[in-house]
């Protein structure tokens, strides 16, 4: 009975969504705010990647809220899983190939991660994507050698400092007579690495924060005692 009701609910939802989607003119969306942003962002923000201009320039406050959610999730994981007992059994180390591979991938992943973060205002990518790659760089050795100690205080320090820098830049913009998190320092030469004002600094802080948070979160999950 319960399954039948659930299936009916799912089917009804599918029908409803399809009916709504059939009404939408596919391929000709009403681009209202997006059109304005596309037209004005190159002059106002100076970032070649308009998605970055939206994420950090126009909706910076939302991004701050989002990293707060990620921070809450990371803190929650630490709170829920707690500290592991010193004598709890661990998985054995992986084989030579995996351990060597992890050591080989570590610098390459760091390089790719920082490249994606620093070019976030020019090319596809940015703080979130690059931060995840940085977290993967630190998580791979942990997968290959489950006993590797994780420097949680260091991760918390990186996370706290980069979050503080993000908010500080926003406050400086506020006290200079603008809006909170408004881009500063002018737009610079369009398309060069040092352009779009404070956006690259904001993205660097964001990338470090996301990377540190995800690395801490993954290592806590991997470190959890299963029984």
């Amino acid at each position, binding site marked *: 009975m319960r*399954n039948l009701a*659930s*299936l009916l*609910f*799912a089917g009804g*939802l*599918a029908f409803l*969504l*399809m009916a709504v*989607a*059939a009404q*939408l003119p*596919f*391929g*000709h*969306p009403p*681009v209202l*705010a*997006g*059109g304005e*942003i*596309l*037209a004005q*962002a*190159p002059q106002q923000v100076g970032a*070649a*990647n*308009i*998605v970055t*201009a*939206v*994420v950090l320039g126009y*909706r910076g406050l939302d*991004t701050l809220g*989002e990293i707060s*959610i*990620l921070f*809450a*999730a*990371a803190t*929650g*994981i630490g709170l*829920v*899983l707690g500290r592991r007992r010193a004598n709890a059994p661990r998985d054995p180390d992986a084989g030579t190939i995996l351990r060597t591979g992890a050591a080989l991938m570590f610098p390459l992943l760091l390089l790719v991660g920082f490249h994606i973060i620093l070019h976030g205002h*020019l*090319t*596809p990518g940015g703080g*979130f994507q690059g931060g*995840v790659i940085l977290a993967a760089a630190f998580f791979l050795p942990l997968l290959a050698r489950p006993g590797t100690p994780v420097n949680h205080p260091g991760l918390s320090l990186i996370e706290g400092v980069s979050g503080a820098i993000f908010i500080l830049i926003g406050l400086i913009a506020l006290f200079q007579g603008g809006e909170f998190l408004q881009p500063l320092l002018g737009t610079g030469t*369009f*398309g060069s690495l040092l352009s779009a004002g404070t956006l690259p600094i904001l993205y660097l802080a964001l990338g470090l924060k*996301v990377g540190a948070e*995800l690395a801490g*979160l*993954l290592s806590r*999950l991997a470190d*959890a*005692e*299963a*029984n």
Partner: protein
Amino acid sequence: MMAHNLPFVLYAGAIGLLVIGIAGIVLSQNLFRIILALAIAEAGANLLLVLAGYHWGGTAPILDQGKALATMVDPVPQALVLTAIVIGVGIQALALGLAIQAYRAYGTLEMRQLRDRLEQDIALDAGMAPSGSRQAPAGERPIPPVPAVQRRGSHTL
């Protein structure tokens, strides 16, 4: 022919993922499968958001030489999805952490057994007899006992 059918295929894919995920959340009996279903539903919702901003012949909203502004897709849904993916990761990680704790406390991820053991614990904490009907069949309830090792962290009987 292809261009005519493409919107239907895309929408059906996105909505199908969303509905499969929701059906999985409602129908699954295993906590881990519920979390996986949540991830599938999220993917469907994100795909739906990206589709909302697409137009024919659209290019990525990144300025470059020789790209006209008019052909670029709406950047707002893309920024929204970027946000949604990151939040989704946080939610899934937290859900997995809670599932690990549930397994440590009760030794199972099956929703039915979890619910029964939770009710027993709550009744024990409140100092009442476990809830049940007087017309319930006599004898032991068909729940295997929790192993002593996994009782740690939970209440001692």
